[in-house]
């Protein structure tokens, strides 16, 4: 399986915080994520999982080292370029859904695609319906996002993350607020999209079962990679 394509790689990532005191949150992080891989990041609280995720998300640009996405070194790019890269290549799912409350579920899902502008409005609407259907929410499509249950909202957020068929879907504790039933649903969706569509999942999690069932788990401790279990080897 060593011929699998690398979609994201990091080289010697170090991250410092200067407030309130100088503190190194990440030390020399090197890892690769492959196409179609379901990767989880675990570790104790404060070990630097979120910090690492935000660095590779392109949203945090204040780090040392290099990050490549789809073979392109994105370190040092301008924020507008990075925004365009995120729009096209990265979908996000957070612990909280971050849906726009005034918009319908459908519109929430459509927004990143309308921003990308690759398809016509009508095609985008059809695609958004499709994504909602995959997540079992096609009947809620026209409801305002604020009128859904927590689990439903999180699934709408996943549909939004999927709308532009990004190469990578990143999640910071995407099941953190969900009960075991909804966690299982989200897990199955992640498994399915990584296997069926070849999209890469990189998810921070505290849920050991969730991590164990993923393709590979990277464990962080004090800002360093302390366990790097490679399933593909």
């Amino acid at each position: 399986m060593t011929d699998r394509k690398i979609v994201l790689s990091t080289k010697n990532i170090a991250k410092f915080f200067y407030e309130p005191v100088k503190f190194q949150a990440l030390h020399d992080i090197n890892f690769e994520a492959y196409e179609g891989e379901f990767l989880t990041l675990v570790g104790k609280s404060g070990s630097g999982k979120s910090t690492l995720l935000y660095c590779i998300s392109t949203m945090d640009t204040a780090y040392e080292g290099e990050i490549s996405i789809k073979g392109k070194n994105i370190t040092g790019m301008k924020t507008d370029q990075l925004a365009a890269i995120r729009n096209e290549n990265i979908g996000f799912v957070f612990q909280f859904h971050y849906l726009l409350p005034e918009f319908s579920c459908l519109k929430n899902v459509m927004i990143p695609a309308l921003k990308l502008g690759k398809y016509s409005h009508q095609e985008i609407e059809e695609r958004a319906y499709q994504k909602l259907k995959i997540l079992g929410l096609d009947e809620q499509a026209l409801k305002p996002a604020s009128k859904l249950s927590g689990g439903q909202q999180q699934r709408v957020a996943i549909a939004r993350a999927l709308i532009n068929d990004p190469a990578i879907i990143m999640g910071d504790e995407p099941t953190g607020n969900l009960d075991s039933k909804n966690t299982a649903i989200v897990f199955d969706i992640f498994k399915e999209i990584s296997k069926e569509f070849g999209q890469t999942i990189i998810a921070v999690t505290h849920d050991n079962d969730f991590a164990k069932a993923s393709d590979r788990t990277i464990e962080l401790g004090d800002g360093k990679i302390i366990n790097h279990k490679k399933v593909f080897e």
Partner: protein
Amino acid sequence: MKNINIEIAVTHIITRKKQTLVAALGVTIGIGIFLFMNSLSSGFTKYSKGEIFKNNAHIKIYKNDEISMPFMGNNDSSNSSQVIINPQVTTLSKKIINPEELLKKLKNQTYVTHAIAQVNFDVFYNRGKAQIKGNGIGVDMIAYSEMFNTQKYMVAGNVKSLQGNLNGIIIGRGISEKLNLGMDENITVSSSHGVVKVMKIVGIFDTGNSMNDNQKSYVNLSSAQQFIKEGPSYVSTIFVNTPNSDKSANYVPLLQLLTPYTVEDWKTTNADVLSGDKIRNTMLGAISVSILIVAAFGIYNILSSTIMQKINDIAILKATGFKGSDVVKIFVFEALVMGLIGTIMGLILGSVLIFIMSHVYMGGPVGYFPIGFESQLYITSFILGIVITLCAGYFPARKAAKVDPVEIFRK
């Protein structure tokens, strides 16, 4: 909707109608008052300019008092003593020499639309024992009326009846009323030079200005010259009009090249009135601009609070690929909509205020309040309303664009 930025902005506005309306209302009041105040000020200025031009041409040419120059001895030699004489007015006569030629020269200038000669003299109007002091003006009445629109103020008779009528006189309404003399009646006029004439009233004017109406009279140029015992070449003032009264000062140096007499534009002559206008306009302007700034703060506040409430939305939009400039566009567009609604309502409010004010009767020479609808002020107010809301919207929008999504997601 084509643009997702605009769609988001419109959704924010629709779901926050009340805040939008409050912000717009601030602009409405600001722009309404701005338009009203500036219309007031412009109406006043026009009125007072109109008053000035009842008696003044754009430019007047006259012989100024000459002051004797102090005699200075030779400065180069220490031996010579210096003699200094107290300056005195040395004018022998206020007469303009050879006015015909000067008038001809003036009329040949392309920028001169009108030029007339005038003879001023002091008079007493008598009827029996009643006597009124006043001033007479000798002019070519038809040309004068073209320049000063005198015909418009005639309440009896016609300016033309003075033409070739050496015995005719046109008097102000105040004189007519005080002496109880009407059309075609005789009035005794005596000049300060001791000339007394019985003249026939051929016209009565009412300019609304009591100074004019109680003192002024018009006679033929040659009658006036007789009153002051001067020959037909005597002229005291020459009045010149140019195409644009606001630019008349530019022509003063050009005219000065043609004549040694004093050339003075109306702004210099009426500097005191104009400076009063200026002070009033500045005050009204300052008040209306302050109100506009308060309105702008309304938009700034409401947009800032919207942004604070929507900070999560901004973070996720930025995470999913919206650029800083997209975020700026969203919120500036919201400000623009508030501003547009507010400005249009403001123009309506201002119009209502102007309409009401224009129906307020002030009495006296002013009549109805001098205020009107001026398209230029509408355009200025509209542009100002939009520019101010754009500025007020831009700063919070830029703050929104700088939101760091990582900081939000960490919470």
